[in-house]
């Protein structure tokens, strides 16, 4: 019971920390340059990881489903299954978990190191707002980068799926694209892609919270990095359950 209450208490603190960052993002002076730098670090530098993972997962999913669909005489549905599963769920979720690992651990470790080496104190001593300079820029960077990275994941998974399909059934690009998107509405694409903004908020807030608040030297750096990945991954999966229910509520007839 105490573990659950500690988890809920920590989640509350992190939510409040993240919401404080969102509120601070709208108050001048705006940290445009630092935010763009973070967007590049979080977004652009994650593209190779996300595209490679998407491509490989696209191939693997097609290989798995193809054999099963043949048994039911439904092999023509393979592109549809691929598109629906990736665009509505796998793409956003896998992207978020990958980014929680790559970026979340990085943010946690980097900020904890800045704290341990007194760099955050140095920023505060100059009356520069360290929260805005370090936390707000990272949370905003994560929120903006996540949907963009999800698009890369969706696209490359379909490319991987098509290549796999092409080798097994010689399907043309036109037919694959038509079959993939025939049953998808814009709401099936927009809502799941935009929900990744929430995942970005979780990754940015949780990892910044641990990095910014833990002050335990080199041990704190390890702790912040580990906690950032573990807790953001857990919260992403838990929040996904809630978000899927909300999307169902607003778009009940979707491909979901």
């Amino acid at each position, binding site marked *: 019971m105490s573990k659950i209450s500690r988890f809920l208490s920590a989640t509350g603190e992190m939510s409040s920390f993240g919401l404080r960052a969102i509120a601070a993002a709208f108050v001048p002076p705006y940290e445009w340059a630092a935010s763009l730098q973070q967007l590049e670090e979080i977004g652009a530098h994650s593209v190779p990881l996300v595209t490679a993972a998407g491509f490989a997962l696209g191939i693997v999913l097609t290989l798995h489903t193809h054999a099963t669909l043949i048994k039911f005489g439904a092999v023509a549905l393979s592109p549809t299954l691929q598109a629906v599963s990736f665009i509505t769920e796998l793409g956003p979720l896998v992207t978020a978990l990958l980014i929680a690992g790559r970026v979340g651990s990085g943010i946690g470790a980097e900020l904890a190191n800045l704290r341990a080496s*007194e*760099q955050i*104190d*140095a*920023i505060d001593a100059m*009356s*520069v707002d360290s929260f805005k300079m370090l936390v707000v820029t990272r949370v905003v960077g994560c929120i903006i980068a996540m949907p963009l990275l999800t698009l890369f994941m969706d696209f490359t998974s379909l490319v991987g799926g098509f290549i796999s399909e092409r080798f097994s059934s010689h399907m043309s690009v036109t037919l694959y694209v038509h079959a993939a998107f025939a049953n998808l509405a814009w709401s099936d694409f927009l809502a799941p892609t935009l929900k990744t903004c929430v995942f970005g908020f979780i990754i940015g807030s949780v990892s910044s919270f641990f990095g910014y608040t833990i002050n335990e030297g080199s041990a704190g750096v390890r702790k912040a990095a580990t906690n950032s990945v573990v807790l953001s991954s857990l919260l992403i999966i838990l929040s996904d359950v809630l978000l899927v229910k909300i999307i169902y509520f607003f778009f009940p007839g979707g491909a979901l």
Partner: protein
Amino acid sequence: MSGQPVVEFKQVSKSFGQRKVLDHVSFTVNEGEVLCILGRSGTGKSVTLKLMIGLLKPDSGSVLVGSEDISQLEGDGLAKIRRDIGFLFQSAALFDSFTVGDNLALPVKHFDKKHKSPKQIQTEVEDMLRQVGLEKDVNKLPSELSGGMKKRAGLARALVLNPKLLLVDEPSSGLDRITASEIDELLMKFNTERNTTMIIVTHDVRGARKLADKVAVLDEGNLVGFGTVEELDRSDNGLVRELISESQS
């Protein structure tokens, strides 16, 4: 040498959990003076500096910087006071991802961006780096600097806004005696040329005896000695005499 009070500690106490780090400590530092704070590790020396710049708040008592109680200030009021305080951290605390030049430019941009062009800011940064002998290292990252160079870059950053008060935490830690002596020379130069009031936390008795107008000795949260080097040499307190003794060097 005895100008207006720049820093006044009045009955300041500070605890972390059950551990009392400062216990009703009072002292005054006047304009242009160099105060060296000595004491064994963990006796609240660095905490004293952090209280002076408002990074920590006292549990009781007041910390006057100029005429303002810095512990009561926040936001713009605190920023205005901090504009006149430079802080050289023990590790120099240069920002890893910034070049030396960008490290120095950050406080100038923050406080004077509206009044200075980028060219002016660059000139000021280069001029400050020249004064500490790092003019050729403006584009280097902190990771490319030696320990002594980092300290000099940190000192340049602390002084780039020409503060009235400079707080220095362990200027000689991790440095060989010659490099430590070079840092001491720089501190003396800025104290003489700019009349900057300095409060220096140190374990280096040789440096303290050379730099200090006054010395404060902290022990277990109490101020057990305060005065000139000569006065403390004659102190009744054995710990004070031992800490200030040249043989400690």
